[in-house]
């Protein structure tokens, strides 16, 4: 009896499935989003990927946490010289769970930077920056640079003595760059001296401009990861990890790829190598 009922779907179950599938199919027919997400999440990767390959996703997660906690902190923070410090004290001491969200944002910033460096080290040591992935390395370096800029602009916002003088030193460091340095320093300060403009300027950079740029570059970064696929580790027996096997270019001109189209190609080459 139980076997029979599990084999043959009941009418109730068919209705339920139809009710669940209908909105998904509706969305898919009009946008292709469902297929796109499946393509992104269930794409083929080399068989011997390992935990080191998760560092990029970890960095992305750290950034998303920063974006989320930052957006919430912005609801309570007041970016002007008279109120900034008091609003940070208010967040830390008075607002429910403010100490936690601020702590997540503060320590998460370091986690984000550290994970970027770990991810970079993995890519470097695995040789994953080589052809055809040079552009993704370049985008990654840009992300590292503007990630640091995000840290620099965020450091001023607590508006305590450490924040203030560290920013004075940081801006003046920029000012010692040859030729355009003095102008860069004035641009960052919003004038000749740190004043009312500086903190709101850093806030706008920290909240809007730089995160927007980071989101855009992460989009490009992920697009290239999907397009070019994941590299095998150097010790892999698969060709994707050792691309210098001197073969003629593959059918689609891209070597070492785990795209479905290219996958059969490098499987075969791996077997020969």
């Amino acid at each position, binding site marked *: 009896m139980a076997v029979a009922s599990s084999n043959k779907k009941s009418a109730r179950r068919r209705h339920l499935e139809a009710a669940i599938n209908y909105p998904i199919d509706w969305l898919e027919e009009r946008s292709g989003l469902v297929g796109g997400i499946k393509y992104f999440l269930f794409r083929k990767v080399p068989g011997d990927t390992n935990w080191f390959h998760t560092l990029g996703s970890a960095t992305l997660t750290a950034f998303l946490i920063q974006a989320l906690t930052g957006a919430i902190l912005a609801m309570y923070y007041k970016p002007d010289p*008279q109120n900034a410090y008091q609003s940070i004290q208010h967040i830390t001491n008075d607002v429910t769970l403010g100490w936690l969200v601020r702590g997540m944002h503060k320590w998460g910033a370091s986690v984000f930077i550290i994970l970027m460096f770990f991810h970079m080290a993995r890519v470097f040591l695995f040789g994953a920056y080589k052809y055809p992935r040079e552009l993704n390395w370049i985008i990654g370096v840009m992300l590292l640079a503007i990630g640091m800029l995000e840290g620099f602009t965020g450091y001023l916002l607590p508006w305590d003595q450490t924040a203030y003088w560290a920013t004075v*030193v940081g801006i*003046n460091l920029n000012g*010692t760059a040859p030729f355009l340095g003095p*102008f860069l320093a004035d*641009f960052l300060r919003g004038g000749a001296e740190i*004043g009312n*403009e500086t903190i709101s300027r850093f806030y706008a950079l920290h909240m809007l401009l730089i995160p927007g740029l980071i989101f855009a570059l992460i989009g490009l970064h992920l697009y290239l990861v999907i397009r070019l696929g994941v590299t095998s580790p150097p010790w892999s027996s698969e060709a994707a990890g050792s691309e210098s096997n001197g073969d003629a270019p593959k059918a689609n001109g891209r070597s070492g790829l785990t795209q479905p189209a290219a996958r059969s190609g490098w499987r075969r080459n791996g077997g020969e190598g």
Partner: protein
Amino acid sequence: MTEPQHGDRPHSPGPSLYPIAFAAGIACILVGLIVNPKIIVPIGAVIAIVFGFLWARDATEEFRGEPVHAIEPERGGPPESTDAPATPAEQDVDALTNERVPRNRFLEGATLGLGAVIGGLVTVPAIGFMIVPAFKGQGYPKVDLGPLSEFPEGQWRITSFFMRPPDGEVSRRTAYIRNNGALNGEPSFTIISNRCAHLGCPVQPNGPEQPDQTKQFDGKGGQKVTLTPVLPAGGFGCPCHGGQYDSEGNRTAGPPVRALDRYQFAIVDGRLILGKPFSVAKVDGQGKDAKIHAYKLAGPGQHVDGWEQILYPLQPPH
């Protein structure tokens, strides 16, 4: 997941006027709320309810198992006439290649050009708004530091004040001021900025301060001047990276690239007026006899003399 083929299937449900009538009912309600809530709103509500019901019934025909009206499917693609010698499209291509400026290229250029103009109209002011104010009206205002009697001859005063009183505490600056006595019948002052010539941290006096003798006064313009006597034994030192200066502001040790900046001053009606700051490469001699190698104000860490000065040929207008 296969690509959906729109061309093969009719839109379901078919086009209907019910949603438009429903929208008209809603609009009637909204207008009625302003014009006459008692009469027009109920009329609109009736229209919206009736046509909303009809629309819902019409839209759910398929699911309720009622017969769907047959609709001619829309099909894409060119007409199926394979025996024609040249399709209209090919004739268009021939005509285009003979034109001097083909229409599609003109339209493409016009679109890109208009886009560039609109983009420029939006971005140029925005970028100018971001950058230019940082370089405009950035002068140093004159600051009244009080009567000369507050600065006894030969003594140092740690003088802190609001550079721009409306900006408040964020504009507080500190200078070390010493009255050098009269030089050729005019008062002489040494006014050293506390901005370290390395990277701009606040330089501290190495000698003991006498905070119990601190004097404060708000000043005429709200400068909130604070004067604290200090014994300048050992000159000045920076807490950040260890730069050391003698009591004339000359670098004696550490990373600074030049001497401490100084301020110009004026005496107006017996009061000390602080002027513009300027940079100093080094100071020969002491007190009122000092020979100051003065330069236009440069940022901390920037050389004003020696070969390195070619790295900083231009300074923003201050």
